[in-house]
């Protein structure tokens, strides 16, 4: 029972990062019908911003965090204005190719102008701490990750539910053209969607950087892959589904690793993906099916 509780917290902590990234992907997918492959680079940019702040100001994590979030948000908005706005309304293939191109461009830029190798910075001391709660030993990092994620999700729920921008964003995700007919300005809603996805990626970047203590040009690839899987589990385009998918993926990874015999632990990802494939056999649209209007 104790081990199960530990695994659950561990899984939810891991799933938190997937959930933040998957939600960002889902927000952009909703308004642009684009699975943004440059999303992982926002994590990379956030981590490099953390490194830059470390060089400039020393080891103050309270400064790193807003800098990383700001850098990822600004990068996301810049990619929308510079690249995606030009191809809005183009075929899904063109959009996908644009996102691949951006991803490669950002990676190449970091490798060329900074370094192919990782840039290290000190992790905060509490990353290695653990606490005992009701006899269960929990890692402080997992608790911090989970708490920050839940706070962010609750924090963005209010504007999504109560402000006209939030209502417009949800409406545009359901039927973009109908939202435009209501007077919603396409540019604003797309920029807002990218800003939100960048903000979420920035938070994820901080949480990842705290754990890794390093920024690397290709560090966004693995989180991107996991976030894509999470959005597919949740139902492509569903914001709620993306969050659920992220937590589900984190839990699945930790529980499979815990329950598999030692000689099969190396195949954990294989078992997780097999379970996802099985899920998609029974629910081809993921956990939450999204019905969306086609564009005129």
């Amino acid at each position, binding site marked *: 029972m104790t081990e199960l509780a530990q695994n659950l917290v561990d899984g939810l902590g891991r799933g938190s990062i997937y959930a933040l990234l998957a939600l960002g992907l889902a927000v952009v997918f909703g308004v642009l019908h684009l699975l943004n492959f440059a999303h992982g680079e926002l994590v990379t940019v956030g981590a490099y911003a953390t490194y830059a702040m470390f060089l400039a100001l020393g080891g103050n994590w309270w400064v790193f965090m807003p800098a990383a979030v700001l850098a990822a948000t600004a990068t996301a908005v810049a990619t929308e204005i510079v690249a995606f706005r030009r191809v809005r309304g183009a075929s899904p293939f063109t959009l996908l190719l644009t996102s691949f191109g951006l991803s490669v461009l950002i990676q190449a830029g970091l490798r060329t102008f900074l370094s192919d190798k990782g840039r290290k910075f000190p992790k905060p001391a509490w990353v290695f701490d653990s606490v005992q709660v009701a006899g269960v030993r929990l890692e402080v990092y997992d608790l911090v990750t989970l708490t920050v994620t839940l706070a962010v999700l609750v924090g963005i729920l209010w504007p999504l539910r109560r402000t006209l921008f939030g209502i417009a964003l949800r409406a545009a995700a359901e039927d973009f053209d109908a939202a435009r007919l209501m*007077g919603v300005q396409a540019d604003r809603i797309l920029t807002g969607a990218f800003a939100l996805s960048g903000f979420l990626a920035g938070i994820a970047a901080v949480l990842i950087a705290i754990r890794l203590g390093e920024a690397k040009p290709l560090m966004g690839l693995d989180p991107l892959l996991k976030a894509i899987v999470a959005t597919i589990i949740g139902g492509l385009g569903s914001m709620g589904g993306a969050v659920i998918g992220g937590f589900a993926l984190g839990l699945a990874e930790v529980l499979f690793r815990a329950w598999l015999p030692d000689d099969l632990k190396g195949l954990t990802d294989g078992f997780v993906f097999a379970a996802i494939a099985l899920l998609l056999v029974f629910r081809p649209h993921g956990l939450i099916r999204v019905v969306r209007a086609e564009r005129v």
Partner: protein
Amino acid sequence: MTTTYGIITGLRDASLRIGAGEIVAVVGPNGAGKSTLLASIVGLVRPAAGRVLLDGRDVTGWAPDRLLRRGVALVPERRRIFTDLSVLENLLLGGAVLRPATRRARVAELLELFPVLAAKRAEPAGYLSGGEAQQLAIARALMSRPRLLLLDEPSLGLAPTLVDLVFDLIARLRAEGRTILVVEQNVRRVLALADRGYVLRSGRVTDTGTGAALAERGDLFAAYLGEPG
């Protein structure tokens, strides 16, 4: 106007005029270009040739939000209400171009006009019946106090009693002096209500006249609209 989708021509030199305070009907068989006409007017597609003039000003290709600010609102085909949003949120979004205080006041006015929506204001719009959803679509378009209301197939997919309700609603809007362009397959009902009408076939305007005169044209119904005269 001429509007094309790649190699397909949706509209061919179609010319219409809508006077202030009029109800103008556009009728025609499936694929005649009726919805393309409305999409071209509100800027969802850009005409390949021709112009859209509003009070003499060229508004061709204007984005829908810009046109809405000039007083042109569309109730799209199949309503396209936002099913995940509540009735209230749908209405609020309909007033996206208004100031917040005006928007709230307008919601209160429309909920008074549409009591069925007032009763279900907090419910997801996806739970509404067809008739309720059509009322919501029209109320949502009225949020911005449009001078010109475009209705695309407002009775499509509705039960006969609900069709009555929708046409009563259009008559009520007419009594308020609103200018309405309505595209409709329920030809007899809409011509009975319209001041003037246009018949669209294969993207061309093939006939025009007063609503009453077109309604008397048995040949028109048989030849163009596939109905017995």
